[in-house]
């Protein structure tokens, strides 16, 4: 079949087209478009109060998305992110309130527990060969259940005041510094996957474990590390959420931590991290999480009738991905013709 020969486009133009066609730019365009639309038509969207809340919520959703992303890279998934996050926060709460530890040590302790639980997930997965879905389904119950047994579902409400300061700070009246924490985590992961040997090994192990094993990658150890990283990030997300509420409460991620599952998947999947593993887009995850947060926030303000918000959220999401698809097709078609 004779195809149309692309005319000679210069190297710079083709790179520009490559960038423009990338999913990340598509997401960015969508975010800007919806943000602008809400700014104009949703009452109160541009109030400093709303923007501040939006920035805090975005930071949390980004980190939740990142924690799932690092596991998706291995070709698996982790249903226990919420459970790990809550358990880590409860430990930190206990360390602060009962143990009297200063805030940074307690937070570090919580993150360490998250990493440990994640590592446990990873170990069970690689040693038994059982699919990560089932393993993390079980550990979701185990971790949450153990937390309930130990804490008897009691919250820690008398945390030291400086635990929440980060969440209460307001820069320029409408931006939360917690975004920096999320951004820092994202940046760290970007460097990991782009520039370090470990990161490349993680991608290789996810893309084709057998081939990776044969070329000397310790696949089992690498997969466990990915899960450990996921657990640590889940704990971090939990800390950000707890700072916002000022207390360590067992219900902060819902029963069994399942409230985190949809946001955890949405960010990476919208952002182009394939569920089959081996490919990752940190920027995409950040943008994906941001898009969903902006959509939810804007919809709540549009007064579409409280019971219809969920419907419009789904419709907008669908519209967003369809637009994205159309954009890629259009750009692709133009390129062939140009």
């Amino acid at each position, binding site marked *: 079949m004779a195809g149309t020969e692309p005319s000679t486009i210069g190297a710079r133009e083709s790179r520009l087209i490559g960038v423009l066609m990338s999913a990340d730019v598509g997401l960015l365009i969508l975010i800007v478009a919806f943000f602008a639309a809400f700014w*104009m*038509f949703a*009452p*109160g*969207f*541009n*109030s*400093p*109060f*709303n923007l501040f*809340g939006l920035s805090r*919520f975005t930071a*949390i959703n980004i980190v939740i998305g990142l924690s799932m992303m690092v596991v998706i890279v291995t070709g698996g998934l982790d249903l226990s992110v919420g459970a790990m996050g809550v358990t880590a926060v409860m430990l930190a709460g206990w360390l602060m309130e009962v143990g009297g530890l200063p805030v940074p040590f307690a937070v570090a302790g919580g993150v360490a527990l998250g990493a440990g639980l994640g590592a446990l997930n990873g170990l069970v997965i690689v040693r038994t060969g059982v699919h990560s879905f089932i393993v993390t389904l079980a550990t979701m119950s185990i971790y949450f259940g153990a937390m*309930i047994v130990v804490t*008897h*579902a*009691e*919250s820690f*409400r008398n945390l030291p005041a400086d635990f*929440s300061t980060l969440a209460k700070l307001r820069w320029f009246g409408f931006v939360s510094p917690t975004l920096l924490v999320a951004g820092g985590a994202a940046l760290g992961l970007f460097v990991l996957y782009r520039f370090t040997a470990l990161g490349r090994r993680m991608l290789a192990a996810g893309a084709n474990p057998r081939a990776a094993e044969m070329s000397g990658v310790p696949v089992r150890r690498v997969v466990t590390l990915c899960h450990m990283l996921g657990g640590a990030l889940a704990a971090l997300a939990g800390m950000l*959420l707890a700072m*916002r*509420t*000022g*207390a360590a*409460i*067992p*219900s*902060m991620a*819902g*029963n069994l931590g399942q*409230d985190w599952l949809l946001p955890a998947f949405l960010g990476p999947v919208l952002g182009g991290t394939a569920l089959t593993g081996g490919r990752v887009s940190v920027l995409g995850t950040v943008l994906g999480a941001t898009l969903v947060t902006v959509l*939810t*926030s804007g919809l*709540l*303000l549009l*007064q579409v009738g*409280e*019971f219809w*918000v*969920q419907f419009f*959220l789904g419709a907008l999401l669908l519209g967003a991905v369809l637009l994205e698809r159309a954009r890629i097709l259009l750009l692709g078609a133009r390129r062939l013709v140009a």
Partner: protein
Amino acid sequence: MNVHRTTGIAISLAMAVAASVALADQTTKVALVPGGPHPYFAAWEQAGKDAMRDFHLGAADYKVPPKWELSQQNQLIESLAAQGYNGFLIFPGDPVGTRSTVEELADMKVPVIALAGCLQDPSKAEFCLGTDTGNSAYIGTKKLIELMGGKGKIAHFTGFLVDPNTKLRMDAVEKAVKEAGGGVTLIQTIADIDAPEPAQEKINAFLAAQGANVDGIVTTAWIPAVTAATTLRKIGDKRIKMVGIDHDEVVLAAVKDGFVNGTMLQNPYGQGYIGAFAIDRLRSGCTPKPDAPWKTTAQTTHFIDSGTAYVDKATVDTYIDQMRAVTKSIMADFAAKYLVCK
């Protein structure tokens, strides 16, 4: 969208932003925010409308978070504040987790009353108007023990363990059992069943295993009450005594037909109506009276009981009137009793 409308919107937005959200609008605009979609709060909608009409409020709107999730409720509250609501009646998604959002509202001089559920002290809510869930469970269990003649085995079906109300209810049931002397034993507590399928599965399994052994059932959450009532009717049992909670049609019908002995009613309509009234008064310069007859619960020292009633076969047909009467009596001297006004 033409230029004029866009400019108009831009100008009014600028004005809204320039003038502080809470103080620019002189009329009271109350938002009634439950924890999530749930039939219990349906009465709030009508209560808000009636309050708006009776007290000449700018708005008294029932706004429901799309899911029963703490973060969704927080987001909704923040966005409602950004939209200009200057008074809030909130069922806390979590007694501790909702405190910081309430604090943000208080910082903007927006009064908040905890409704149907309380925040854990210390909080910036003006006070809590609701049912004392622990007390309601206590009374319900005592009624059940009375119906059983003071001895026998009972089971307790309740809601999610991560909901602090559940622990209060479990403690209350245990207390009532202990006070009955040695005659009554609590043979099983099943929690985490405030959802249709787990409730069906576990309540059916329980009745299959212990149906012949148990003498009384107390339920302290909406869905287990409905499911237990349905199941007792299905197996045609009138021997096992049951005390339910709330006013679901299924439960009330079961009370009428003798499968359930009675139910502990709460007063959602009264909560919404009185709460909206109170917010309006608080915005007009009144403050809570320090030496008012506040009640103390496990969660707060500024509690007003919105009324609970035990309804059985004899009174089930007139329960709405009963609750209206309770609401009326609370309203009669509410302002004088609980508020001090300039």
